[in-house]
């Protein structure tokens, strides 16, 4: 048996459970509830432009913050001793075992107007802040929940880099900064790309974080879709159309990001 045939069962599986469901979404998006072909679902989407813009803007901010915060963590960890590395990775994975909704719920008690943050601020004599039910609260919730998904892929790529490359670069006169800039960073880009994938997509489509920390005041695409399928505004055709457009924009975004990444990889010959 040739090894490439190992994937045939999975190819059939993907046809049924990955491709077919998307065909269903496309079918629903282009039909009325009676099954008549139509474009009215897309026409009805115009009034939600601000929701689209807000979703992509907040997700982009969160992704960038995750890279800025998470990359240094991954890099610092990779230079620790092996035992400490293992311990730290454990510590970063551990919070993911606490349920996502609960962790977000915990942020409610921190960010509320009478919450722990404001209690602390007034305790040390500072003015209180109004964060809950604003986009800021939503971004905090996203960064908090998705940060490990940025740190882990970057870390796992950096530790795999052959250490003799660092030594070679150093022997050739590179200091720590230029080793980082010319060796570590370009070689870690595949990790950053998977990190972006794992952060941006759940961020752009969340409805849990917006409902808990945005209190219904910060409506995003996820809320809109959820309302069409399980909520008050039951309309799976419109919901499918919104989901379809969101999917297409996400795919375009990922394509651009990946292209950029491939260019960088080629430039360093990796």
């Amino acid at each position, binding site marked *: 048996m040739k090894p490439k045939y190992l994937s045939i069962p999975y190819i059939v599986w993907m046809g049924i459970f990955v491709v077919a469901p998307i065909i269903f979404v496309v079918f629903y998006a282009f039909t009325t509830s009676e099954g008549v072909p139509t474009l009215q679902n897309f026409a009805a989407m115009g009034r939600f432009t601000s929701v689209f813009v807000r979703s992509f803007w907040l997700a982009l901010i969160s992704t960038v913050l995750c890279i800025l915060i998470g990359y240094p963590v991954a890099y610092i960890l990779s230079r620790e001793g092996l035992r400490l590395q293992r311990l*730290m990775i454990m510590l970063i994975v551990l919070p993911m075992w606490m349920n996502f909704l609960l962790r977000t719920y915990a942020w409610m008690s921190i960010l509320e107007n009478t919450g722990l943050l404001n209690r602390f601020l007034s305790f040390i004599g500072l003015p209180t802040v109004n964060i809950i039910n604003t986009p800021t609260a939503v971004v905090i919730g996203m960064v908090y929940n998705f940060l490990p998904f940025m740190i882990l892929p970057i870390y796992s790529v950096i530790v795999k880099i052959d250490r003799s490359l660092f030594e070679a670069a150093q022997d050739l006169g590179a200091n720590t900064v230029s080793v980082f800039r010319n060796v570590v960073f370009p070689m870690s880009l595949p990790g950053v790309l998977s990190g972006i994938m794992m952060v941006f997509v759940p961020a752009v489509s969340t409805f849990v974080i917006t409902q808990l920390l945005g209190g219904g005041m910060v409506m995003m695409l996820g809320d809109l879709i959820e309302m069409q399928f399980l909520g008050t505004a039951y309309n799976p055709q419109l919901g499918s159309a919104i989901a379809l457009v969101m999917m297409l924009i996400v795919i375009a975004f990922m394509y651009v990001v990946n292209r950029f990444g491939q260019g960088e990889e080629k430039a360093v010959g990796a």
Partner: protein
Amino acid sequence: MSTSIKRPGFFGRSYTALILFFLYAPIFILIIFSFNSTRSRTVWSGFTFDWYRSLFFDSSIMNAFYTTLIIAFISAIVATIAGTFASIGFYNMKSRWRTPLMHINNIPMMNADIATGVSLSLLFLSLGTVLRFNLGFGTLLLAHIIFNIPYVVLSIMPKLRQLDSNLVDAACDLGCTWIKAFWKVIVPEIMPGIINGLIIAFTLSIDDFVISYFTAGGNVMTLPMQIFAMTRRRISPEINALSTILFLTVLALLIVINVREVRQEDKQKKLKNRH
């Protein structure tokens, strides 16, 4: 072996500590308030174990907990096995075939959870009317396996790409059959990826709310669904209690595993020094 890599200094370590504080503060708050004698989540009013006691008599929470655990175990194991074979199959294909297939594999990951959930619910509802089944435990489990496999493939493929293909060739030249090379060369080399995939699948499955929400129907509830339903009213500190137990269990497990690994390494080092 000499390492010329400078260890992180005070600044680097303080930064990591700060991030860990950021990651853990909300969790400690949850744990502390599981012992709070009132239902308040911000005002401390006294110590109690009541929520732990009542937790075990709350059948809806306990049922949701068992459902979550069973789904996570089965789906993670099935997805890891399927994903390992699929990855190795993909790796050995010509890139003309592999590239489009990998794109299809990546769809459930690139896709937002909500889009996966919605599209699967449309599929299950349509198949259900033809084959006469309803949304329930079966569709929930199927959905979890479906969204777990791509993550397993994602965590194994980079390891396969890093795998030196000469190793397999060398094994084959030395008379290994392909099956033998598979078990003795490929699997050990990609083991970190497989284990990583298993862990990711398990945690994603335990943590998943969105896809479950759209594919479970009205009669089955996972723990996250239960919690979501409760946030619409008011969360019972019983949930805090359950999370605390879960958290401490995982912590204990990870510590045991870690200590054992360190001890084994020490033993191996000692053996090496003796020879």
